[in-house]
């Protein structure tokens, strides 16, 4: 890797002391495979522990920045983060092996779950367990919603946009793309750049 290439791709690393030179494709794959196999209950904390704390491949500031990009784009946080980190470390190939690594264990496990569910899904005990599992999952999603709202909803109008989205999808049965374009544009225009930053925005 030439010096120019390093500077071009990793402009900030010279002064943060992040170890990024010489990370091999194999190392990237293995690290993401381990994350993919062990990240029970949500990938993001495991990503931070592994990539920032253990390996020092990215620093905390980069991690937060990448996470905010991951959240604004379609795609799951886990896979978007894999793409961004892999891309930063080793370009296209790095991104490809990172996303394969993080997906592979869960995909194999869920394939097996599918086979088992097909053959035993109507067993009384399984049905009873699944009833409890599904109810608990609803609680988990609600928790995600509460957590995200606390973190990223700054303005009271944000709750109006949130409610409009729910009404459009659940009550008016609008498709997600239509809702996204309509409410999304409205919300982006509401948060348009201003010369004088407002109090609530400029926290």
């Amino acid at each position, binding site marked *: 890797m030439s010096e120019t290439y390093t500077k071009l791709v990793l402009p900030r690393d010279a002064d943060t002391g992040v170890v990024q030179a010489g990370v091999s494709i194999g190392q990237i794959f293995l690290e993401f495979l381990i994350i993919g196999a062990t990240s*029970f209950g949500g990938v993001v904390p495991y990503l931070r522990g592994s990539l920032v704390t253990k390996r020092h491949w990215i620093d905390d500031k980069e991690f937060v920045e990448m996470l905010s990009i991951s959240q604004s784009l*379609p795609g799951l946080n886990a896979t978007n983060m894999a793409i961004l980190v892999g891309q930063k470390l080793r370009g296209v190939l790095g991104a490809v092996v990172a996303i394969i690594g993080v997906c592979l264990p869960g995909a194999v496990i869920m394939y097996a779950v599918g086979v088992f569910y*097909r053959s035993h899904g109507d067993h009384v005990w399984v049905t009873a367990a*699944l009833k409890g*599992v599904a109810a608990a999952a609803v609680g*988990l*999603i609600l928790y995600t919603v509460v957590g995200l709202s606390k973190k990223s909803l700054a303005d009271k109008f*944000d709750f109006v946009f949130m409610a409009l989205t729910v009404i459009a999808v659940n009550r008016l049965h609008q498709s*997600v793309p239509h809702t996204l374009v309509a409410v999304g544009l409205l919300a982006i225009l509401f948060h348009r750049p201003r010369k004088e930053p407002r109090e609530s925005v400029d926290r």
Partner: protein
Amino acid sequence: MNQTPALVRVFAYLSLLTIGGGMAAFPEMKILTVEVHNWLTFPQLIHLYSVGQMAPGPNMMMIVPIGAWAGGVLGAIVVVLAFFGPTAVLTFIVGGLWNKLEKWPWRRSIQQGLAPVSIGLLLAGCFTMAKGAILGFETATIAVVVLLLLLHYKINPALLILAGALIGVLSFTP
């Protein structure tokens, strides 16, 4: 009938709806996989999603069994590629540009504007799922207790889902 083209179309489309999280695509996933293509039933979709929360890795790997049931091993592979491919390419391209746009004032506007909409999409997905998962007082209690526990204690969510299975067996077996 060969389901592969339909699997590609449906999951590539759903992929682009997952803003804020996989749950954002859930209402349309229900319509397309259950009502339009009959690949599985609504209770099965809910079960797969919920069990999927216990598996490690990205939390939408429940698409794998849907692909497998509709089209075997090939179906499973096709579904994963269709569901993760488009957003991976998009993130790769935008990720590179996004940092260069740090000074662009609209960057902040887009992030702030999309936040409430993406949370709304998650909530809409949650309500869709709740219609099939919250069936009475007991299931509602389980959901609320899980929410409260997560809000007040640092517990691994996968353990709570597992606990949900246990409580399910104890309270719903005849």
